[in-house]
């Protein structure tokens, strides 16, 4: 825009035209933007309503109170049957999504940290194994990883009658993993109280030990004490009541193992696939985080006499966490969203259940809206939690 005829416009600076006032312009542009967005929203809503009416379709969320009529294979938390409502079916789906996401996030984090640190190992073999792991899982689409685990689980595991027996009356076959379910008798509540007291006690002991170390430099075996409190107290409570605890063991029925608790192959393969897939990304984030901590930090730690283990645990990782947490949040969100691939292997997550409801009630707009809102809520809550965690870990200048 090289203009040849530059005519110097000299104006009284006190009397700038309103049009050239940046503040006024800003207001104008913002008002226009708001109007455009409002118009667009109005256009879309209006279109939707018109089109629905034209297609003789009802709208609204009232259909959620209707009887669902279909069964769901996995509803570990809610009592669900075909007599339940669509809303209850959706809750089952949401809880299944949350279960696999939560379990996946924990496992992926653990595997990711191990592999990430392993990639920085001085041991050639460990380093290479970890590299191969990352490159394999990172470069394969998650859906294929899920199919790999699902067909792997299905084709390798035996039929129900030839179940693989594991210790403690646990069984593995192509219908899933079966283990004894604890049945609590009268007086078992005391064990719950014991567990609660143990957790609170652990918390208090940790605080006390930290203060003491700060004041005197003496260390206290917090780990062992915590274990004793959390496991020992409930056991003690059970012993007082004469062990009011029995187990419901899985036994072979006409078709399958019956009784006990069961984890289906769909959940297992989805959970394993999401964990292993996401772990490869977390491993790279962890590696980057650790690399981001200056070498001088570990050298200083060594100079102070700390060995390799404590150096990593007490000096490097806490500083690396500040780099790791923000991208880690994205991976957690990805894992949660990737869980919607469950639909491919028949795990009844939110998308699978919602899809069935969509098909039966033909309420595509409502169901898609519910999908969007639920995933958005889960993601926003995850982000808020991770932001809080990040703020807690951030460098506080003193």
């Amino acid at each position, binding site marked *: 825009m090289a203009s040849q005829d530059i005519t110097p416009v000299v104006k009284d600076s006190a009397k700038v035209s309103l049009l050239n006032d940046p503040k006024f312009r800003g207001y104008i542009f913002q008002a226009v933007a708001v109007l455009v967005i409002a118009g667009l929203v109005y256009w*879309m809503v209006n*279109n*939707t309503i*018109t*089109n*629905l009416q*034209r*297609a*003789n*379709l009802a709208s609204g969320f009232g259909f959620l109170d209707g009887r669902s*009529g*279909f*069964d*769901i*294979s996995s509803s570990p938390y809610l009592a669900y*049957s*075909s*007599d339940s409502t669509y809303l209850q079916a959706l809750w089952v789906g949401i809880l299944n999504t949350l279960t696999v996401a939560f379990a996946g996030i924990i496992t992926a984090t653990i595997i990711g940290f191990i592999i990430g640190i392993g990639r920085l190992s001085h041991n050639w073999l460990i380093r290479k194994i970890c590299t191969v792991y990352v490159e394999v899982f990172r470069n394969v689409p998650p859906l294929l990883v899920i199919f790999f685990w699902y*067909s792997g689980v*299905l*084709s390798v595991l035996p*039929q129900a009658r030839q179940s693989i027996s594991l210790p403690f009356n646990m069984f593995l076959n*192509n*219908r899933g993993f079966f283990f004894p379910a604890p049945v609590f008798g009268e007086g078992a509540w005391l064990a719950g109280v014991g567990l609660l007291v143990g957790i609170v006690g652990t918390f208090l002991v940790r605080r006390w030990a930290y203060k003491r170390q700060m004041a005197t430099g003496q260390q206290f075996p917090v780990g062992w004490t915590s274990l004793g409190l959390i496991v020992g107290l409930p056991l003690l409570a059970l012993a007082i009541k004469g062990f009011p605890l029995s187990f419901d063991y899985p036994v072979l*029925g*006409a*078709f*399958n193992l*019956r009784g006990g608790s069961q984890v289906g*192959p*769909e959940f297992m393969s989805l959970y394993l696939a999401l964990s292993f897939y996401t772990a490869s990304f977390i491993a790279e984030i962890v590696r980057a985080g650790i690399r981001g901590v200056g070498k001088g930090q570990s050298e200083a730690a060594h100079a102070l006499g700390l060995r390799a283990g404590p150096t990593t645990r007490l000096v490097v990782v806490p500083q690396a966490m500040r780099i790791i947490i923000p991208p880690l949040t994205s991976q957690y969100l990805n894992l949660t969203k990737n869980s*919607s691939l469950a*639909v*491919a*292997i*028949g795990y*009844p997550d939110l*998308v*699978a259940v919602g*899809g*069935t409801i*969509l*098909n*039966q*009630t*033909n309420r*595509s*707009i409502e*169901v*898609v*809206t519910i999908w969007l809102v639920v995933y958005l809520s889960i993601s926003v809550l995850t982000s808020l939690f991770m932001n809080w965690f990040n703020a807690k870990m951030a460098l506080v200048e003193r």
Partner: protein
Amino acid sequence: MGPFLGAWGAIRQYDLSSVGTMGTNLKGQIVMKNLVLKGALAASAFVLLANAASAATLDDVKKKGFLQCGVNTGLPGFASPNDKGEWSGFDVDYCRAVAAAVFGDPTKVKYTPLSAKDRLPALQSGEIDVLIRNTTWTLSRDEQGFDFTGVNYYDGQGFMINSKKLSGINSALQLSGASVCVQAGTTTELNLADYFKANKMEYNPVVFEKVEEVNAAYDSGRCDAYTTDQSGLYAYRLALTAPDDHIVLPEIISKEPLGPVVRQGDAQWADIIRWTHYALLTAEELGITKANVEELAKGDSPEVKRVLGQEAGTKLGTDLGLTNDWVVNIVKAVGNYGEIFEKNLGSGSPLKIARGINAQWSKGGLQYAMPIR
């Protein structure tokens, strides 16, 4: 712009005149297979477009020059593509019959393979003109903005088991505690729940979206039983690793009247699909076949002449929005109902399904054509 263009492409079947000229450049063939996407597309179609599927489907079909027919993704006997990608089957022949009635040319069809969950949203959003995909006629579907135009196949839901592994079982009432493979979003899924509840039996549903996934899971032993329409069980059994190990149990637990579906609110188009079915049945009743139709059109039986549009001054075809020789075109292209049945499902096919209740009313069956006059 990328996703935006994608969305326009996918909802190409709409009359886009009211929202711009983009749509006309983008009438590419995109077959979306993902159900989630389908649901979302149906939703976005409602949200985005001012002019959803227009009322006059016949005009739309004539204008674009072909019929977009929604069929099964692969159900041998009803609709499945061969290794050259050519579709064949009972439902496919119905698509071809409609194309023959409209264009006089059975090849003017494009097929959209749809999973059970995708099929109705696809019809509703206008992606297809007619759905001929073994779809059960139910009240709730009928009142949700669709019209069923008739029953081209009377079916019922059954169970298949591996008789080698479960040798003691010869009735569905012995299935308590079984894992049952079923396709998501079907009436089958609901009948299954009702049947086990009514008989106070427990079961574990293993639900997949795509029929290929259900087949693979059943074949690998993930489930003890497979449930769907009996015709489907016979068809899928052919594709199992050891078909002879599997038996279809005798119980039929539901009525499954399967038929073509159109969008509600277009009476003319519904009539064309409905009377195509009746034309096929009438042709069988009158002994009009693919081989003799042209000869009979020149004959002198008054009833045959009327049906074939050879009566002087007849307006039966033109009043329907077609030509007067529409029945000739249909039968010349695909044969009569009996021929279609035997070729795809009956003695001429690997399925060997008996006519049973799908025989003509005069032979003890339920197929009954309204008079063409």
